[in-house]
């Protein structure tokens, strides 16, 4: 019985950890051994001020240094359009545009972005005046529960900018040629956004239409 329970937990954790995806970006100053031997001061929470420009509006916040950009948006600015899915960079629900580039808001600290320009789903359109990408999502039924949708839309906009800038992808046949929009390119480039409802085929259609091409 205990073994059975242990096995279940282990398998679940294994699956979670197996999916942890990141090509990473920390620059540890110390070797693992040295850091573990070094004294770790159990510091009290540290507050720090940061100024962010979000959807054109400047916000000055006093935050615990541990606050992720995602939590700053949701818990401190009540910009709850950006969703928390996995909180580990695996699902893409928290995708926002940082200085025009799509990133996972859960895997970066708010204090790291002093003076940065952020666009969230709230900055793209209004209920009466949808952004073309939002309108295409509605038209093509590119969602069911809607939880991944803000991340999908921000990611799609960032992705199209990358494609227009000529960035290749894993499925681009010719690395040196300018990539062209296709369903395969969209699927590959959007692989960092999961949709548990499985609206993938409609997502491809919506993004294709919003891109202004019937590739």
């Amino acid at each position, binding site marked *: 019985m205990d073994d059975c329970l242990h096995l279940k937990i282990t398998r679940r954790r294994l699956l979670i950890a197996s999916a942890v995806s990141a090509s*990473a970006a*920390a620059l540890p100053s110390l070797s693992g051994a040295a850091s573990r031997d070094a004294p770790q001061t159990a510091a009290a929470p*540290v507050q720090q001020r940061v100024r962010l420009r979000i959807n054109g509006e400047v916000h000055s916040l006093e935050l615990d240094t541990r606050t992720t950009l995602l939590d700053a948006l949701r818990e401190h600015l009540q910009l709850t359009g950006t969703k928390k899915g996995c909180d580990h960079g695996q699902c893409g629900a928290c995708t926002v545009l940082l200085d025009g580039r799509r990133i996972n808001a859960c895997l970066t600290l708010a204090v790291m972005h002093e003076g940065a320009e952020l666009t969230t789903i709230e900055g793209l359109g209004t209920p009466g005046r949808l952004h073309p990408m939002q309108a295409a999502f509605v038209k093509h039924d590119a969602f069911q529960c809607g939880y991944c949708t803000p991340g999908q839309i921000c990611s799609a906009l960032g992705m199209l900018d990358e494609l227009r800038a000529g960035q290749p992808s894993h499925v681009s046949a010719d690395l040196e040629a300018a990539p062209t929009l296709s369903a395969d390119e969209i699927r590959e480039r959007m692989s960092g956004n999961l949709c548990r409802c499985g609206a993938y085929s409609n997502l491809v259609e919506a993004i294709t239409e919003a891109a202004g091409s019937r590739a």
Partner: protein
Amino acid sequence: MKPFTYERAGSPQAAVASAAAHPGARFIAGGTNLLDLMKLEIETPAHLIDVNGLGLDQIEGTADGGLRIGALVRNSDLAADARVRRDYALLARALLSGASGQLRNRATTAGNLLQRTRCPYFYDSDLPCNKRLPGSGCAALGGYSRQHAILGVSEACIAAHPSDMAVALRALDAVVETLRPDGSTRSLALADFHRLPGETPQVEHALEPGELIVAVTLPPPPGGRHVYRKVRDRASYAFALVAVAVIVQPDGRGRVALGGVAPKPWRLEAAEAELPRGASAVATALLAEARTTRENAYKTLLVERTLAAALAEARS
């Protein structure tokens, strides 16, 4: 997450000086791996030194015709660089096969080299792991190990290095340039950068305390056909079960590096001498020292077949 103090370093010199003054500090760049580990309290730095503003984000030609890649160049920018796409296609292909668009936009060149294993037992603080808690044991040896390493492993650890980029850099003879707190610099061949686990799997690389990677340098373009072939559980956004990087010259000579099978990017120059005899001969040489578990024994056959496919593509 444990509390920490945070600073933005103003220069590489200031960054290493601060690291020397703060035992237990970490540099943070993209943060896509470090922050994840901090949330799980596997990493618990008392101080973070943000190196994003150091100006180490340029890609420049070198005097000998190679390329100098700043430590802070994002993975997406490196893969999109025209010189990389033309002259170091292996590197562009490896980068594009890793992670997601969002992650590549943040992840950096140096951070990618320093990312830590995705062994599930390293992440699970309820279970033993010699890398996370030295001396506690290895849960992977008798556990779920189909993703684990088969080369360069020890009784203490069978975790695989997760990077695709590093596999290409190994095949390209990359050199890591660093700055130390005393102001001195040094160059480390990527071949010597990552450490095998032995009895100290917590020691993963050759950097000294406070030492900062400032750039990765590539020798002049090697020419030949470049193929990076990655086998994984789904078509995109997954770590390699096996990855093969090959560069094949018109005369049949070439280079081979493996990913997903070892605690570091795996390359044996002696195995490359077998290239004229075909994939099977190269694989046999590469895998002579392989130590498998019941669950990852399939990787030996997968290496041979993936290598055969990569070589066929490179020669087509």
